[in-house]
């Protein structure tokens, strides 16, 4: 039985077995390669996506458990989201492997809290690991994106 879900606003029918991790479905069946494999253990945050708007690990989440729900991935940000522009402005990254997941958690935060404090941003991102040490820049970029979005720049 195909599983139906909404991915980045578009209906998708998935033929993978119920127990297939959402991560594998996104990457291999739907060709959305931006969601990243980091550990498969829900420990690093590289695979973070939004499930009905809330951050969820994709690496161990079985596809059969989310039928009918809405998934947003990094591709759903569209490339010119204020968060993405702010990350470029701040050059917030080194290798960049952690950024897909971090951007998704940041989006979930800013969608519900347009004026987060530094501490609130840190709390929202604390499940994410970044090995290069780009955290100070990433925090600045999320603050900048919040400012852009408050100024009505949602292009």
């Amino acid at each position, binding site marked *: 039985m195909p599983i139906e879900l909404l991915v980045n606003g578009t209906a998708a029918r998935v033929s993978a077995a119920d127990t297939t991790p959402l991560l594998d479905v996104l990457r291999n069946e739907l060709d959305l390669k931006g969601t990243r494999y980091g550990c498969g253990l829900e420990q690093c945050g590289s695979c973070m996506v939004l499930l009905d708007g809330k951050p969820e690990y994709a690496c161990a989440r079985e596809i059969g458990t989310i039928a009918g729900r809405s998934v947003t991935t990094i591709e759903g940000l569209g490339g010119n989201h204020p968060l993405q522009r702010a990350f470029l402005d701040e050059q917030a990254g080194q*290798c*960049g492997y952690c950024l897909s997941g971090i951007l998704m958690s940041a989006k979930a935060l800013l969608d519900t809290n347009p004026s987060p404090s530094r501490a609130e941003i840190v709390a929202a*991102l604390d499940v994410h690991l970044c090995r290069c040490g780009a955290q100070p820049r990433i925090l600045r970029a999320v603050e900048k994106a919040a400012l852009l979005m408050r100024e009505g720049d949602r292009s």
Partner: protein
Amino acid sequence: MSDTLPLSIINNRRMDKWLHFQSDRTLRLAVGKVELGQGNVTALAQIAAEELDVSLARIAVLSGDTQDAPDEGQTTSSQSIEVSGRSVRLVTAELRARVLDRLAQRLNCAPEDIAVEDGAFLLADAPTGHDYWNFIQSDDFDADITGTATPKPPSSYRVVGQPVPRRDLPAKISGAGFIHDMVRPDMLHARVLRQPNRGATLVSFDEAPVRRAAGGDFRVVQVGNFVAFVGANETVVQRAAAAAPQHAVWDKVRKLTPDMQEAAWLVGQPSNDRVLYSDEPPPETVVEASYSRPYVAHAAMAPSCALAEYRDGHLSVWSHTQGPYPLRDSLANVLGLPAASITVRHAHGAGCYGHNGADDTAVDAAVIAREVPGPCIRVQWRREEEFGFEPFGTAMHVTVRAALDDAGKPLDWTAEIWAATHVQRPSSGGNMLTHEALPTPPPDPRPTDPPEANGGGGTRNAVPAYDFPVKRIVHHLVRQPPVRTSALRGLGALPNVFALECFMDELADRAGVDPVQYRLSLLSDPRARRLIENVAVRSGLAGRGPAGSGRGLGMGWARYKNKAAYAAVAVEVEVDREVQVRRVWCAADAGLVINPDGGKNQLDGGIVQAISMTLKEQVKLDATGVASLDWASYPILKFSEVPDIETEIIHAPDLPTLGMGECTFGPTAAAIGNAVAHALGVRIRDMPLTRERIAAALLRG
């Protein structure tokens, strides 16, 4: 400017190996150094744009390709800008000079009269109708590079020295840009059952339960003690590999004991020993202290990945290796293929910070591809595979001894170092993991360490830059560590600078002198003094209160490899049950900085990573292998633990560029050691500075 040509040019003399002007008014710069997240490719493009006077947007960079790019060996040791950057500058300056000389003859003017504006040539501000693309001739590229052209003076720079954005970042914030994302026609996914250790032999493998666990079709490829699972469905082969170890029985599995995971185990192990820098007999009366760092992991965010295709006798490999040409040579050696039948292309991976699983994964893919010719084989290591089988940064035990004068200053200084090798690439005596599992494994690895001229390995930054009359290094290269070790950011610099700079604080304390003043009284290098004074003032180190308040300030500094960039770091810590680094002040001097924002990113990243290693990280062992196989058992610094960092680059544009990617690593560790000692009133000399070590130190008093 040195008279000798950089190694990169000596090894790649033809101009067309570096530059190619394309018909669409762009040009391709080809380099052998690769992007590992450090931004070097962007900086190299800036250098070319500057010398040629071509806008950055017209320059595409091809990096790390054994077919079309020069051989620049490994991308290591903060050498991309020092060596490749110098090469790109000489190459582009020479091409510009060749072309302008010819044009000047044609126009009957002096070459200096011709201006270049985004690749177009102007005379007396008027267009000449000529540009690089229409005036360049094949003989501009035919002759060898002589290195005789004079590059622009730094005072005229317009692109170099500017904070140019990274070229690869737009893709990476949009969900693209990594080797992990590559899809080739007919691609098959593969996973590997790893040989537990060199020499272990596979006695039996029960395939049936593995097939049940996998829940789908796959093929088992076995070559000697190398076993791989290959199939069209990634989820299936991943499950097969996850289930496989419990259904494999191995003989000749190594036996480990818990003490082996500690640096202290190294002391007294069989070693290759040498004494460097002084023949004088060591003095009898000394003060001494011992410091240590355990085995640490590169712990890249992405487990390694590689693709390989073997078709019509040609092997094509995509890898996030640090060295495409050395990897090609390793593949030729392992597979018995001529190097000319192998192409290695670099594709971006996660930051590696040294020799991790990248190259081994590429060999995995190549071995499978030869067994399964035709389709593209994509090997993705699993998280536990990366943590379990990457080569680690070696543990180090460092004992420092000093004979002091009446004022408490060292007359004679010894650093005695116990460490396994810091570089175990195949080109340095090491083996590829996969090779050891094949029917004809290579000989046991040879313990070697980088030569002193390259900065040394275990001895890296062990020689103090201070004005001590006698300096002596005793190096014990331990021959058989319990785990494979190889290059990790800074090699021995972090443990050695930790030992050296912590011992300086201890000696200052003993002499009753402020640690900043104590250092300055023993240091004549003006560039170093300036940085130390800078962070001392900014952090308020001189006015720090008495020790033992629970809050501490401390500093450390080093010139990386005693010849690359300088960095001084001061930190403020708060110590309760654990150490929390609150603030960091850094000052760095790297001569001419090509991209100050990229440089700052590296300086700050090194600080964060060093805090993580100093406070949290240790590879754990169990009876047969590595026990720290996930992020719970190998924790690294979290967002909530990252301090505010204020970094200043002290610009010296007229001085040669000094590699800066590793220069904050040792100073940060030392600064934390000293700040924690100030906070507690007692010193912890063994990394990581954990809750248990804090409690033990306080009990000890």
